[in-house]
């Protein structure tokens, strides 16, 4: 222990003659290679996104005939593409504003509701004693990996016609036909169920880590479970709640499959991802419009990501097993 730290911290004696031979110079030059490689990779990773960002501000003919990197020598920029992408009239329109609102209408409830429901459940798994607690929790963790493809067919049937059970010739409605197919409600309701396992898992892990003494003390003072939950656990769990909220926000905002399944036949209800995919299919060569539309759909997640990256990383580190 002592030798290791001493050797590491002791400064090089000044009496040693500085080595400036050719070998040392080569060695030093080689030492900078990792830095070059790192920043080379960073550039490589950023170029594709930079490409659509720059192109979205270039004039239609320019985008279609010259590479976006020529913007360096010919810096002529326009906001026309964004006007076309947002507008709801005209041949070039993509009506992205409406779909932006749809995305918001799906994402907000699909983020808040699982947060509340999961907080109740996570508290119970962490601090209540009841039969079957461990098995239920393991079951929840197991559900993390279940691919959502397993749910889509039955859920669509459920939203179209409800669920009915026939026993002894008598048909019972287990779940009513609420006419949910093709509605935004169907999308966020579904996301609640899909988001819950991860939410419960993350919040449970955080809540079990809270100091037992504090909770025991509250209990001795006569607080019951709802009081401990609202007054003690919830305020203490804000970091974990924030981590999950960001995770779920990005997940729902970026979701394509769930939205396509339930509102795919209802273009006016489509969120940005579904709209962008259909634009890519129908107007795949209109790069001036596609780049602007793509950037509109990724702008909000990027803002959230860069401003709240700390929480996102925390959520990722705590439970990177989502299916």
């Amino acid at each position, binding site marked *: 222990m002592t030798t290791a730290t001493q050797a590491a911290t002791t400064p090089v004696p000044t009496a040693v003659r500085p080595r400036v031979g050719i070998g040392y110079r080569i060695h030093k030059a080689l030492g900078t290679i990792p830095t070059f490689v790192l920043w080379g990779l960073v550039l490589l*990773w950023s170029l594709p996104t930079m490409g659509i960002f720059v192109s979205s501000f270039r004039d239609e003919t320019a985008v279609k005939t010259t590479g976006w990197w020529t913007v360096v020598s010919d810096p002529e920029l326009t906001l026309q593409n964004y006007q076309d992408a947002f507008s709801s009239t005209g041949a070039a329109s993509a009506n992205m504003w409406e779909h932006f609102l749809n995305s*918001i209408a799906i994402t907000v409830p699909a983020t808040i509701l699982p947060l*509340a429901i999961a907080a109740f459940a996570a508290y119970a798994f962490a601090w209540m004693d009841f039969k079957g607690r461990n098995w239920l929790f393991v079951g929840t963790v197991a559900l993390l990996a279940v691919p959502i493809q397993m749910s889509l067919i039955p859920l*669509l049937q*459920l939203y179209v016609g409800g669920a009915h059970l026939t026993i002894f010739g008598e048909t019972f409605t287990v779940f*009513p036909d609420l006419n949910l197919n093709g509605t935004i409600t169907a999308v966020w309701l579904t996301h609640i169920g899909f988001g819950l396992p991860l939410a419960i898992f993350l919040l449970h892990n955080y809540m079990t880590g809270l100091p037992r003494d504090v909770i025991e003390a509250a209990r001795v003072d006569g607080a019951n479970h709802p009081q401990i939950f609202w007054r003690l656990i919830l305020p203490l769990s804000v970091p974990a709640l924030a981590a999950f909220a960001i995770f779920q926000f990005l997940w729902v905002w970026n979701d394509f499959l769930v939205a396509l399944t339930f509102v795919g036949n209802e273009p006016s209800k489509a969120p940005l991802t579904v709209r962008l995919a259909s634009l*890519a299919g129908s107007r795949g060569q209109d790069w001036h419009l596609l780049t602007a539309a793509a950037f509109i759909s990724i702008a909000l997640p990027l803002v959230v*990501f860069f401003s709240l990256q700390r929480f996102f990383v925390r959520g990722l580190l705590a439970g990177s097993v989502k299916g």
Partner: protein
Amino acid sequence: MGEIIDTIVSVAVAVGVVIGAFVAVNQLLDQAPRRFWIFATGAGAILGAVVGAAANSGGWFLGGSLWPIGGAVVGALLGGVVWARYPPSMHWRRRLPDRVRPLVFIGPALLFVGIALVAPTIRTIYLSFRDRQGEEAVGFENYRTIFRNDNLFTFDGAGDILTSRTFLLAIAITVVAVTITIGRGVVRERGVDFTAPLPVISLGTAVTLVVVAALGALGGIVIWNNLFWVFFVAVFSTVAGLAIAALADHARGESIAKSFIFMPMAISFVGASVIWRFVYAFTPASNDQIGLLNAAWVGLGGDPQTWIQTQPWNTLFLIAIMIWIQTGFAMVLLSAAIKGVPHELTEAALVDGATRAQVFWRITLPQIRTTLGVVITTLIIVVLKIYDIVKVMTSGRFSTNVLANDMFDTAFTDRNRELGAALAVLIFVGVVPLMVVNILRMRRAAQA
């Protein structure tokens, strides 16, 4: 504006209902010991509403909501008037809140998870054993249909792997690496060490080359395509993530560099696909290239290529998008793990004369192997159900189809739900072993 107000209202109502019901039921429970009549009325109303809803087995037309409301009123009366007159013992009433409370806390979660995940999973498995009308059980017929379809699964052409040049190259690399490793062990008289960098890296390269050979021979067949996706994304995202995490560790501007590599994680698969379609864009050789890749290719003297249509290598260009996204994920987890390796260990090794490369290979890597396992299992789980990228890039054409895309088309476009269910179950079966691994790892972590 109307939509915004609609949204705000529906969100407020939904959140209010969930939290309000939770608080109300908890309050009711608290009333059981002292003011039993309140509890009896409330419990009666809730039970009555549920029974009323269930009794309304016909259609849930608008008037249908009268059933649960009527049930609630009748239940409240029965509870408040009849049950409240004959309250159970004080002992029972005192114990009741603690008994029922766990159910109140986890009930809502169980309800949603049950409806959205558990029941559908069971039903999908059930559907996969039914015929197309869903009327008769057909055993494994749907699965037989899948495995007999040469577009989905076949071994035809597997023999070509053995004669391909990449395979021969892989054999050559293996022979050379094994010879050198054994030779070195004999010369240095320290025993043969297959965990040294040279044999591990060259054998890893050989395996990758064999998979590339397999892609050349079996690419385009849906189930094989899925396996190629899993292999390439798991391997390359992990290796790239590890390399970047190691390079960035304590480098200047570390957090900025990591942010940029991590950024694609915030972009939807659909957005990423559009971004990369632009990179792969093709224009005839007579024009300027607008796609970055073709511009670079032409700059190097090649002819412009239609990257996403040229089989079978186009699958690799789609896979590259996923690697671009997931490398950031691998990097974040591995970087955190590398920073968690105790300094005493690495410092001691450096003092003893180990090079940085040796420290990384012999100390850091073994120390972070649990995280490596987490990263790889998570990547496999995510990639097995890959859908969006294939859908947006090619719609599964040009031999790039994968299971999830075929499942969606079969179930929802062709309306063959039962066969679609069988395809979904195949994805699920691929995930199950990883699910078990995850649970075992968590149990171990909980015990430690």
